[in-house]
């Protein structure tokens, strides 16, 4: 781009793209305050849906389960995915990339059914743990891809310099490599969290009796019409996600920016 100001077309395109991304979210939030069960038109302002949500133990338990699974899956798959990413970058193994990336390419329905059959074979009780394990399994690949891309753009001589100065391999990783790839690691973690929290298909098959996550609950409500209570719980989840990003950005201002 030249310095003579940006073209209005670019502005228009940018605004249209952002509108496409954010207007639906804004509508969800606005209608969570709508005083109508139907939610087809604006009737009036109310906090009723939030009040109702606070008393809806089903919905709260489902949201709690979703968060718990999302955070666990994101933490564990970030650690494992980062390790896989580093290993793939450094040692160029042949088999590992196939193993790590296969769960991304496999259709979800296949993965869900095969995991269920696997758990049943092991006589593993289906529940929060089986869902979390399944989510970790499909999240690892996404984290590994992001981390490996970050590593590919990193100057390898920095790690070598650290080693030359006498750092142990562990220290060189911890004090040089890890900080440099951290934006990739965080991006991977956030991606894993998002993927986990809205997964339906794999969760449906691996969840046990009594394990209800938010997507499972909302989906089962579609048949009897979704109330603005769903908007309310979505709004709260959005706030929480936003909060996570803001905290991450506060902790490290360079985190969400490319240098």
């Amino acid at each position, binding site marked *: 781009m030249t310095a003579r100001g940006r073209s209005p077309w670019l502005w228009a395109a940018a605004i249209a793209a952002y509108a496409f991304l954010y207007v639906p979210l804004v509508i969800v939030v606005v209608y969570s305050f709508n005083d109508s069960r139907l939610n087809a038109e604006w009737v009036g302002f109310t906090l009723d849906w939030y009040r109702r949500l606070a008393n809806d133990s089903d919905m709260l338990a489902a949201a709690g389960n979703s968060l718990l699974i999302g955070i666990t899956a994101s933490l564990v798959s970030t650690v494992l995915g980062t390790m896989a990413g580093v290993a793939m970058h450094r040692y160029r193994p042949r088999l590992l990339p196939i193993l790590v990336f296969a769960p991304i390419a496999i259709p979800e329905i296949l993965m869900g059914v095969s995991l269920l059959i696997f758990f*049943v074979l092991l006589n593993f009780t289906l529940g929060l743990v089986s869902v979390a394990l399944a989510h970790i399994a499909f999240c690892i690949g996404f984290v590994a891809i992001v981390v490996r891309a970050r590593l590919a753009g990193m100057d390898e001589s920095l790690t070598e310099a650290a080693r030359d100065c006498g750092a142990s391999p562990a220290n060189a990783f911890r004090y040089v490599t890890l900080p440099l790839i951290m934006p990739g690691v965080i991006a991977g973690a956030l991606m894993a969290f998002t993927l986990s929290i809205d997964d339906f298909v794999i969760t449906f098959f691996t969840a046990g*009796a009594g394990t209800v996550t938010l997507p499972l609950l909302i989906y089962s409500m579609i048949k009897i019409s979704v109330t603005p209570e769903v908007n309310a719980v979505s709004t709260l989840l959005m706030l929480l996600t936003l909060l996570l990003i803001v905290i991450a950005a506060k902790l490290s201002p360079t985190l969400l920016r490319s240098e």
Partner: protein
Amino acid sequence: MTFRTIPAALAALLLAVAATGVPVPAAARDELHLYNWNNYIAPETIKRFEGVCQCDVVQTYYSDNEELLAKLAAGAKGYDVLVPTSNAVQALIRGGQLKPIDKTAIPNIKNVDPAYLNTPFDPGNQYSVPYAMSTTIIGYNDEKIKELGLPTDTWAVIFDPKYLEKVKGRVTVLDSANELFAAALKYLGYSANDVDPKHWDEAAATIRKAKPYWAAFNASSYIKELTVGNIWLVHGYSNDIFQANQDAQAAGRKFHILQGVPKEGAVLAVDNMVIHKAAPRPDLALRFINFMLDGRNSAELTNLIGSGNPNADAMKYIKPELLKLPAVFPPKDVQAKLEQLKDLTVAQRRIRNKLWTEIKASR
């Protein structure tokens, strides 16, 4: 750098959620696991049962019989009571997924209207007991339809262009090949379970001729569209149409959403309580089934969602305005014209899918 604090913060959050968000099961109270449709049992009924059995009812939901079948076929377990529709009951019996019901443990089965017992889906009710039901009928906006002078007691209003041209773009039909073919077959004077390919072709032609007049194939948001007043005439489920009217009254609309039972007959869907073969607590399951067959408990669901009720003892607890609805409580002459859908064979399903795809793709 402070990167290390991020995982730490996440871990702290995780602990916080673990401490508050997820209910930790209280000291070994008995649990009954109910795998059910969403909003398909009244909260007060659950509470009362929990009081009687000194146990907790834990519900998990499905939104489609096929979901339930797929999950159980893959070997999922941990559920005590399931509530599948009759044809799914048949599939579950065939798959060896159910435990026979000990009738001596459920004396309340005497309350069930004999018309709903001993059906071809489960002869002798060895495995299943009817829970609640719905019919697939005509729903309409009384103000608009009266204004236009259209009949509401015949499928012709959904399929005949003579009537449809007056309500063009204001009609929706269910996005379900089985339901729509059943309605078209009934309109043509055949059984909803007719499997003659020639009759299917006739039905497909009828549907294609009517399709340009319909606004959409819609199985999820037509309740809302009816209530708002965008759509005036639907092919839909009786409890959805009941719900649409309740919403319309609550929103202060001037019109009502009424039910029309076609004189040609309609599809009846009965959901049944069954016990899974791997039920952890078959004893509690039997107690629950017997409890739900009690008239008062059974009536609470009907009063909540306007579902049909096969329980004769429940009638005295049901709101009178519901009892008057022929689609919810069909009188004997209507009952005789209702049919439950049977499963199709693989070959039949292939033919129907092909016809359905052609219908969906046609203009």
